């Protein structure tokens, strides 16, 4: 006899229960636990002494100048890095989109930076930018661009340059590959029609190609932004948040608070505040990026 709809529903729910259990254990429960901890003065070593302190942890976030600074530099880092990656990625995509054997080979090589672990790439970058032994200073001096060695990690401006350049090197290919896929998927007819009407060069790109590419730009920017906000290993290894606190992004602060000071409550509040910020930011980004573009079609 064929099972009734109710029997099928019950069986279905029973079958997903293990997966729901894992989801609860790995995601829902930790999130709820963090929320609980964020309202307490909770240190890992004194779990039995975690008094409820209301919004004090959150108040501290709002009033602590160093935390506010960390949040600001995180946002600035993301804007700068993603902006540069988008520009360079688009350029690369335009160059490599036409199908040819050499372009296919170049596109394959593009994947290499993304395959390198961020910590390893940061270690290599640190050596490349070493003012005494690094290749960067050596070749800059060889070609006469500079005469005195630049201490790249000793100055806030050059430190940020080093951090952003690493992120750009590693993740521009990611943006380029998404945009390449978009360019290769654009039908040729609109461009041919526009060309017949006399459009060419920049006008052809801006008025015809780019609007069709916009959904892919939106995807690339959204994904890179979310990933950039999660940057940690790169900056931890490259600058350690220095010089001073000039490159102390919020993830470093959360790491120190949680895993070096073991102030679980304070770290939980930082994490949740960051989550709330991203929860507000991402829909706004989607609204702006999706304007006049159809992400579903993409």
């Amino acid at each position, binding site marked *: 006899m064929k099972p*009734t709809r*109710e*029997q099928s*529903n*019950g069986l279905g*729910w*029973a079958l997903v*229960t293990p997966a*729901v259990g894992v989801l*609860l254990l790995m995601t*829902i*429960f930790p999130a*709820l*636990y963090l929320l*609980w901890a964020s309202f307490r003065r909770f*240190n*890992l*070593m004194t*779990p039995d002494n975690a008094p409820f302190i209301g919004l004090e942890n959150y108040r501290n976030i709002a009033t602590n100048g*160093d935390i506010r600074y960390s949040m600001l530099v995180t946002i600035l880092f993301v804007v700068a890095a993603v902006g540069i990656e988008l520009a360079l990625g688009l350029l690369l995509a335009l160059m490599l989109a036409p199908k040819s054997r050499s372009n296919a080979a170049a596109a394959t090589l593009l994947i290499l930076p993304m395959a390198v672990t961020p910590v390893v790439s940061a270690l290599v970058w640190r050596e490349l930018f*070493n*003012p*005494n*032994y690094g290749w960067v200073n050596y070749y800059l001096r060889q070609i006469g661009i500079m005469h*005195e*060695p*630049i*201490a*790249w*990690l*000793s*100055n*806030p401006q050059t430190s940020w340059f080093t951090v952003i350049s690493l992120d750009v090197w590693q993740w521009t290919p990611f943006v380029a590959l998404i945009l390449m896929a978009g360019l290769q998927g654009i039908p040729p007819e609109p461009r041919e029609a526009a060309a017949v009407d006399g459009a060419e060069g920049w006008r052809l790109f801006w008025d015809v190609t780019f609007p069709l590419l916009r959904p892919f730009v939106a995807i690339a920017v959204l994904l890179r932004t979310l990933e950039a906000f999660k940057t940690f290993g790169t900056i931890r290894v490259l*600058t*350690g*948040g*220095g*010089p*001073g*606190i000039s490159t102390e992004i919020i993830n470093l602060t959360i790491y*120190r608070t949680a*895993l*070096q*000071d*073991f*102030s679980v409550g304070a770290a939980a509040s930082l994490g949740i505040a960051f989550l709330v910020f991203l929860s507000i930011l991402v829909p706004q980004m989607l609204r702006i990026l999706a304007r006049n573009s159809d992400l579903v079609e993409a």
Partner: protein
Amino acid sequence: MKNTQIGDVTQTESKGVTRRHLMMSAVAMGLSLPVLSKSSVSAAPRTALLRQDAEKPASLNMLYATVEADVEAIKLAIPDFKAETGIDIVLDSQPYDALQQKVFAELAVDSPYYDVIIVDTPWTPALTGKLEPLSGYVTNEALNDVSDPALDDFIEKVFFDTAVYNPTASHLQFPDPTGIDVEAITGEGFEIYGLPLQANALVAMYRTDLFENADDMAAFESEHGRALAFPETWDEFTDVAKFFTRPDQNLYGTTLMPGNGDWATDDFKTLLAAWGGNGYMVSDDFTLAFNSPEGVDALTYYASLINEHKVTPPGVTSFSWDDASAAFTSGLTAIGMNYHTEVLAPDVQGNITYALVPEKETRGPHFGTWMLSVNKASQNKEWAYRAANWFTSGPTQTKMLAAQLHPSRKSVYEAAKTDENATKFGNFYDILGQSLALGVGRPRLTNYGAVDKEIWVAVNSAATGSMTPEEALQSAADKVKGLLQEAGYPVS
């Protein structure tokens, strides 16, 4: 399922699992898990009497560091421990950050998995409630059948700084760290929480070949009216460092470590102590000592080496221990300062001699020592103590010299004078032993990591010139005061 016919509509009452039931159960389960998990945590620490005839386990689990505490030395000794006792040591070694997280996570839940744990001094104030007090063990003859603790053989300053804490007020330093007497220790309300092993202190090193170059010796004497020698004082240090600063020859006077990290705090507190300040930086009564006039003067001098006298290599303000080591061993500087032996790069033709860091009013090089402790939740505490005792014993530490262990015992420094494993590094062990006798440790704060960070930021800011030393230290003081209050310390 119950079906009810109402007109043409069949209403079904499901008594099986519904979506709503599932979600409500999930939320209830999630909220109740903190309560359930506490009761499922491993056994609470035992406070049973010492069991002199405790059953010998087949193995003991040891949680250890990597290069920071010379794990190769431990690996060297493990077969001997097995031969002596028949017990396998299951060694789990972790790099520093991962080790700290593992130590704290294991001890926080009273996990009995690890029997013996290596503990670094900055962690101990937060861990005294989780480590087994050893005063009853070191005085129990039956438990010292494998090796003699010989407490008086430990370097006193190292022993008291590393292992002796007040269980109810872990911020206090032992009042009179002269002569290791268990009764005196417990009489003052303190306890012994481990046995020191890898003892590190800041030592200086210099290129003997440069200092003994005839032309340089003549030039220096002509310029300064005294013989060229490794400086005894920081004032002399400036002259010597400037003398060897020759950018056109890719040679600089000295390394320093003002990069973002604990190394910058350690550099600063060494000078703070030398300038006559309190090298602990925070007193037992929570008075901040690092932003004192001595601290400002010390940091001003430190920054002047970089910005005014320019005796350090480019990029020094981002230097860590490793960068300083690389700079010295590659021949970039004539003088270095670090916490271990150095070996010059193959393409650098030279020799290394070690020296005490210079003095101003006095000497107070930073030191910090690891200790082997017994997990309070261990099921094999008596044998875990025997293991800690054996690995830190004189004969074992002497054998570990082959892996460049930094000993914690006076007898081992004596043995090092003729042990070729030690003498191949010249006078390093002699200088290390002397430095440990003069060393100044860290303040005993449960949140030392956060305090450390504020101080290193101040040191780095002064070193880069982004803040004056006074501004930097005052800014750090304001933040440290807040941190101490957050940690529950009674800061006035």
